[in-house]
């Protein structure tokens, strides 16, 4: 049985309210919050970046099972905000965890689905018997240009998944991807902020890929929406995952536990994986979870995950929702400083 052996998460503690961002740009905070389904978002501090988030999430995952870290044979870090353009984040994680030198490693990039792409790699390698354990991480400290609609959602956080075949707490029963060349969102070398196709990011990008991947995996596994206790979709805002769920026949009850975007924003590569972690925090043995990520450019990774009896023995505290609640609010001025939008000499 191949699947998730443990998981860990990290969410920076600072928060900024959509209302506070709206105040600066002369918009109505209430209208924006309701329109996007985002009340606030997480903000990293000056000494946090994708590497520190990845390490902290990975450490939590490893600590929960107390395995010998030298048994980890692969580290994949998916992000669109790796601290270096050239120089991997995965090696920083490997060193900080004391994995040794014998491991496969790479940084992955596929907008917001690079973390689930890392999970696919680890699952395949564990299935092939190439590795005993693999670490797949999705982490980001994403940025939106000041005044751009993305500024209300682009946030920071990450989740790490230890994949293996022993003491599996949640089996990965199936995985598929739906991929096409769709330029809905991009950032070129040297550009500080991403560009996007505005309304184009909806129907031909997010909804087409998310619903196609979900339909594909349900068709192939013969499962219906009612066979799942929970569903987690990529969460660029609060509205898209709710609409995708409705299109696929899932109820708001099925997506509620994993819908974290209203309180921490869109953590990009961390988004669907943090949502999955929030669900794993409460899932009971034999309950099924549908996970659908989305990365602009574009593609969706689909997973059917079923909790095993072993999940009851895993230390699942602190929970994702506890971390979401423990935030400290900052104003727009401090936000600019923390995100280095004002140059400090």
């Amino acid at each position: 049985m191949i699947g998730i052996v443990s998981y860990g998460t990290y969410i920076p503690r600072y928060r900024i309210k959509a209302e506070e961002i709206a105040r600066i740009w002369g918009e109505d905070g209430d209208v924006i919050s309701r329109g996007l389904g985002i009340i606030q978002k997480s903000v990293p501090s000056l000494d946090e970046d994708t590497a520190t988030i990845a390490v902290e999430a990975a450490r939590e995952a490893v600590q929960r099972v107390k395995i010998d870290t030298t048994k980890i044979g692969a580290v994949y870090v998916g992000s669109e905000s790796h601290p270096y353009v050239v120089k991997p984040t995965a090696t920083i994680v490997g060193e900080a965890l004391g994995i040794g030198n014998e491991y496969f490693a790479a940084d992955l990039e596929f907008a917001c689905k690079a973390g689930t792409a890392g999970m696919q790699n680890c699952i395949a390698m564990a299935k092939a018997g190439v590795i005993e354990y693999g670490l797949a991480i999705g982490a980001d400290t994403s940025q939106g240009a000041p005044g751009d609609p993305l500024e209300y959602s682009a946030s920071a956080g990450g989740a790490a998944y230890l994949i293996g075949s022993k003491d599996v707490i949640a089996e990965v029963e199936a995985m598929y991807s739906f991929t096409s060349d769709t330029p809905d969102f991009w950032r070129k070398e040297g550009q500080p902020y991403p560009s996007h196709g505005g309304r184009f990011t909806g129907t031909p990008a997010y909804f087409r890929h998310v619903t196609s991947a979900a339909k594909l995996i349900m068709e192939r596994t013969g499962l219906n929406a009612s066979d799942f206790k929970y569903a987690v979709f990529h969460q660029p805002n609060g509205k898209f995952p709710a609409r995708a769920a409705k299109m696929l026949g899932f109820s708001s009850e099925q997506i509620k536990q994993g819908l974290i975007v209203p309180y921490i924003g869109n953590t990009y590569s961390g988004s669907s994986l943090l949502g999955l972690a929030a669900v794993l925090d409460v899932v009971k043995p034999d309950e099924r979870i549908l996970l659908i990520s989305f990365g602009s450019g574009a593609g969706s990774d689909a997973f059917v995950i079923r909790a095993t009896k072993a999940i009851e023995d895993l230390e699942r505290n602190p929970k994702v929702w506890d971390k979401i609640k423990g935030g400290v609010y900052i104003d727009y001025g401090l936000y600019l400083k923390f995100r280095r939008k004002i140059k400090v000499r």
Partner: protein
Amino acid sequence: MLPRFWRKIKYRYDLVGTKCKNCGNSYYPPRNLCPVCRRKSDIAEMKFSGRGEVISYSVVHEAPEDLKAQKPYVVALIKLEEGPVITSQLVCDPENVRTGMRVKKAFRKYGEEGEAGIIYYGTKFVPDE
């Protein structure tokens, strides 16, 4: 600066120190010789749990150039649960820090060598209560 940092990465990224198996004392940063046992030293590498307690602290208002954006920040003397006392930045609002506060290790950025330079990472502490 770069080779010097690289050699110490293992000890900065995590609390990896040493323990003398002769007397049981542990050391961070690591020591090759136990000052208690001297020639009888029996040194082995050990990883500390990362949990400890603040025994003293000061709030830094006059920061060096590369830490200016973070001021005021807290530098604390932390007693690790295994015994050694170390000096570290404690990521905590200055008004909330107190002696006896329980803290745990955190992986953070130390700084970077300018826009195009290398980024330095290492261990800091955060409140654990």
